[in-house]
């Protein structure tokens, strides 16, 4: 079989600015394609991205030589396979169950959301992205993880710095200096809480991990905490901003969502339409084949869930935000062993609490100028501002 065709036109800049027209062309003309500018083989069809993620024996997450290792001071579970991955994953998974949320947290999350919303006044125009989406996501995560005492500002900065470090494929030493400092701060903060959690066992992730009968090593507890900080703030923040944008630019759909209380469907459609995590990479362990092309051992494939989520084979009118779909088999939370550990949390916090509370408090909120909203990102994507008139 031939090797995948090579694309020499597309680079990071275009992908960061507006990837969707590029993905649409790729799905049509070159669904499996080597992108020179990114040095990766892009997979843009839903069947291919899903197969790769569901076949870890062939497409491994285990790649210790990415910038993730220095950025997190650890070989984290996101970059492991098999039993080792499952053990580290299950050490914290129980903190993220629907039952724990219902029993321990739902009321706290409602109170947090209300507290932040109550700082805003009707009649004002505010950047919801900055005032609400980020800080509320951060505050909620402090509780889920058991990071008592961490400020919103710290949580958001740590999260961003971890993400920047993990994406530092140019190995820029300045970026690693920043992640080093963040790691020092996080390690010190985690360390200062361990006695507290041992003395007061609770349902938070840190407490579960340090109090486990057969705990994973401290280094991996810390690494797990960092993965959850890196993955648990920007994604709900971006999902929330995307959903608000979708609903405010489509008042008839908003009306219908309100009438049917279909906030859960609005959530699913928001993360389908603009997946907060757009792409994930996997290392090819054996010579193989995808979509009629040879994929050599040692290649790195990018599963572009952003594109899979708009694949014409699965979605009608996939380029648009359409809440009321019969089926919505998106891959925004990934698939396979690394399927998002926080999916239940995200659905419940963003979908069932944050978004309805916002529209409840400001029923006549408007987005005066949708064109003023700027979108960015290749690996992670969402609006970077959301200027809304509250009413």
């Amino acid at each position, binding site marked *: 079989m031939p090797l995948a065709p090579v694309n020499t036109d597309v680079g990071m800049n275009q992908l960061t600015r507006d990837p969707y027209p590029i993905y649409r062309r790729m799905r049509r003309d070159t669904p499996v394609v080597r992108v020179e500018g990114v040095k990766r083989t892009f997979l843009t069809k839903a069947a291919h991205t899903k197969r790769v993620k569901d076949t*870890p024996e062939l497409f491994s997450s285990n790649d210790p030589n990415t910038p993730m290792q220095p950025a997190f001071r650890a070989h984290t579970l996101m970059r492991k396979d098999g039993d080792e991955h499952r053990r580290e994953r*299950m050490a914290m998974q*129980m903190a993220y169950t629907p039952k724990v949320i219902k029993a321990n947290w739902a009321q706290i999350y409602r109170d947090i959301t209300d507290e932040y919303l109550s700082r805003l006044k009707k009649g004002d125009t505010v950047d919801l992205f900055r005032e609400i989406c980020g800080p509320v996501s951060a505050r909620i995560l402090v509780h889920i993880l058991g990071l008592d005492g961490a400020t919103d500002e710290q949580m958001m900065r740590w999260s961003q710095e971890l993400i920047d470090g993990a994406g530092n494929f140019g190995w820029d030493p300045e970026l690693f200096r920043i992640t080093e400092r963040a790691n020092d701060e996080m390690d010190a903060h985690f360390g200062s809480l361990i006695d507290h959690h041992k003395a007061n066992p609770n349902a938070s992730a840190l407490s579960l991990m340090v109090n486990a009968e057969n705990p994973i090593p401290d280094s991996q507890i810390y690494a797990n905490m960092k993965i959850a900080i890196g993955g648990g703030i920007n994604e709900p923040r971006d999902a929330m901003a995307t959903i608000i944008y979708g609903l405010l630019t489509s008042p008839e759909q908003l009306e219908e969502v309100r009438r049917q209380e279909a906030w*859960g469907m609005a959530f699913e459609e928001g993360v389908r339409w603009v997946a907060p995590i757009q792409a994930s990479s996997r290392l090819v362990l054996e010579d193989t084949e995808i979509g009629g092309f040879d994929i050599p051992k040692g290649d790195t494939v990018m599963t572009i869930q952003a594109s899979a989520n708009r694949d014409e084979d699965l979605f009608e009118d996939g380029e648009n935000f359409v809440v009321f779909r019969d089926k919505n088999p998106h891959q925004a939370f990934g698939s396979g062993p690394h*399927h998002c*550990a926080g*999916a239940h949390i995200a659905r419940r916090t963003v979908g069932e609490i944050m978004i309805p509370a916002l529209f409840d408090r400001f029923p006549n909120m408007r987005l005066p100028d949708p064109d003023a909203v700027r979108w960015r990102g290749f690996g992670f994507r969402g609006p970077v501002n959301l200027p809304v008139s509250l009413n």
Partner: protein
Amino acid sequence: MVKVTYVAADGTETIVDADEGSTVMQTALDNSVDGIVGECGGAMMCATCHCYVDDAWSDKTGPRQDGEDDMLECAADAVKPSSRLSCQIKLTDALDGLVVHLPQDQV
């Protein structure tokens, strides 16, 4: 072919002919049976393919797999002794006629 009956939370029955070797989860997805999401594709990582095996069939479907108990804890709806992750029930001849009940919520 193996016949499988899915009984939704509201009592609606869907009967499908499944391929031997497939799973109860995959068969539901392949036949657009509502009420099973199966978002992680059978890796036992999402608990969105939760089902209750009909009492008449629990002996034949056998015990839960290694790790299944833990992941069932993450299910959205009540977990009962008959609870299984349907991705872990492989369809064989012996399961021809299997009946599973679906929970109200998967996410």
